[in-house]
């Protein structure tokens, strides 16, 4: 996992806008940020640096879900 977790999100949506690769979205029900497309994370930390409440923690490892052959 690249973005490890989002803890204490206030739902401002800045991380959603900030992510160059569109990894984060606001959950339509909870209105909080969720890691929607983790495979596309380039581990650049912009979301973490822009988060106004330091809610995002990131690890340097990345595992991409196995993609089915020919899929």
């Amino acid at each position, binding site marked *: 996992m*690249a973005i490890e977790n989002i803890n204490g999100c206030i739902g401002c949506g800045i991380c*959603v*806008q*900030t*992510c*160059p*690769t*569109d990894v984060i979205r606001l959950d339509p029900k909870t209105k909080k940020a969720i890691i*929607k*497309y983790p*495979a*596309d994370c*380039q*581990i*650049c*930390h*912009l979301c973490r*640096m*822009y988060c106004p409440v330091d809610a995002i923690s*990131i690890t*340097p*490892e*990345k595992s991409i879900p196995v*993609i*089915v052959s*020919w*899929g």
Partner: protein
Amino acid sequence: MTNVNTKNEMSRRKFMGLAGGAIGMATLASMGIPGWAANKIKIDPESLEYLEKETDVLVIGGGMAGLFAAVKAHDAGAKALMVSKGRLGSSGQTPFAKGIFAYDPSTAAMTLDEFTATVSRSALGSNNSVYTKQMAEHSLARVNELKDWGFFDSALYNKSFSKPINERNIPLLERIVITNLIKENGKIAGAAGFSLDEEKVYIFKAKSVILCTGAGGFKPNGFPICDLTHDGTIMAYNIGAKVTGKEWNDGHPGQATNAAACYDGWHGMFERKPSVNGIEVHHDLGVDLNYMAYTNGNPVQMGPPGAGESNPISGGPYIPAEFNRMSSDKPKDGPEDGKKPPRGERPEKGGKPGEGDAPPGMGGTSVGGSSAGMSIHKSEGLVPINDKCESTIPGLYAAGDALGSYMAGAIYTQIGSSLAGSAVQGAIAGEAAAVYSESANTPVISKAKIKALQEEMLAPLHREAGYSPAWVTQTLQGIMIPNFVLYVKKESMLKAALAYVEELRDHHAPMLRAADLHELRLVHETKNMIATAEMKLKASILRKESRCSHYRLDYPELDNENWQAWINIFKDEEGNMQFEKQAFNSWPNENLFHQI
């Protein structure tokens, strides 16, 4: 295009036939059997709202070039509108660029002409000296404007970029993916795209368009370019613009450990406030390091003189002695009087201790290929016809990494000039586009054209089955990223890779599927990467010599008789990819080129 589309339809029919037809596929999905190719659609493509916007100057891209393009177009009296795939100052490579060059005539150790000549020597003539000089000449003025906006006060650029945009009330649309440029009657007429957040399709009618869309790569691991897929270049190519510079390679290494972690590879540099640096001309980031890694096996060694250079090898890319960090200090390629020219001052070390200042390859074990698919900054993109960043299509401009200005040449020369060049060219293009718009009419785009664009844009959402963009991208990466394809080149491997890429182009790209707007973006990015791969391979096959960041194992020498020329790429009326040579340091309208 017609040919390709016909082929696509054939491929699709064949595919559906093989898979048991549409009914069979739908049945599989409805039975709950994981149909691997079924498109589990999450939005209704028929329900997308349609919006039209009109402006004088449409700026596409929200990085350093886009910022200045929008501001200067506005200040020159035009109605400007900015649209970006990401957020202002937070997408592309701009957020990660921490050094900006400024040529200060009151303190510089050399004149503008000496500086330009030094860059030309390092670039082995491959630079456009008009753009080299222009960058230096205007750099200080742009740096001073950035200072006023607070650019140097924060590691994050959104706030300082927003200041001049908000002060001028320039409309800004973020997270809009532009998929097509629109041309009517031989001139630019606008662009089309869709929103990532709202189910909306946008048609922009514009008198002029400035592409500030950056360059791109193949979404390689370890370099922050994974949102850059040459979108602007390929969109412009598709409407007939000439593009250039596809055979050159950025040679940045990445880390062997946690290879995907851009932030960690740059050792915290992204947290640093930007800083200004003076003249320091290099011949860097070519394939010399990657050639050593290829020959000796990994790791890649990089860094200042003396850092891991104990084991130099013979052969490999030619580096002018004047700029060779590994050879003795005696210049062989200097000016005629034999005096070593000033290479410049040492740059100020940016940031405070502990803030991080080591780029990739300095510290830890490094491996090559982290920026695979990217050329040298400013050396790929649209062919300019003059020093105003104007492309071969009237009304279409490009600036920064989207413009093949050859400002630096086919190798990295001046430190910090990438960011400075984007600022300078953005401003030049903004002013030029504003002047062009004064005498241009608001374009009329036919309803039939808009309908066709919309259908093409949204087609992947309509597919009941097909290939996921993630799989096709991974397949493309497997073909293009190995060091024996783009870094250490030879004809047999380039042709082999091309056969694979043509297969993806003809058979897989037409069947890319998207379940939502995120995937729709990935589909368009994947198509752009496939087109880029074809250009890179074909241009690399054509250039039968080695120069700067293009290294051919089968043609290791410079060929000054035949190859003091750039390679332009364009689409002919039948939709075929064509190539021509344009003499170094010339303009297209000087006719110093011929078909190859």
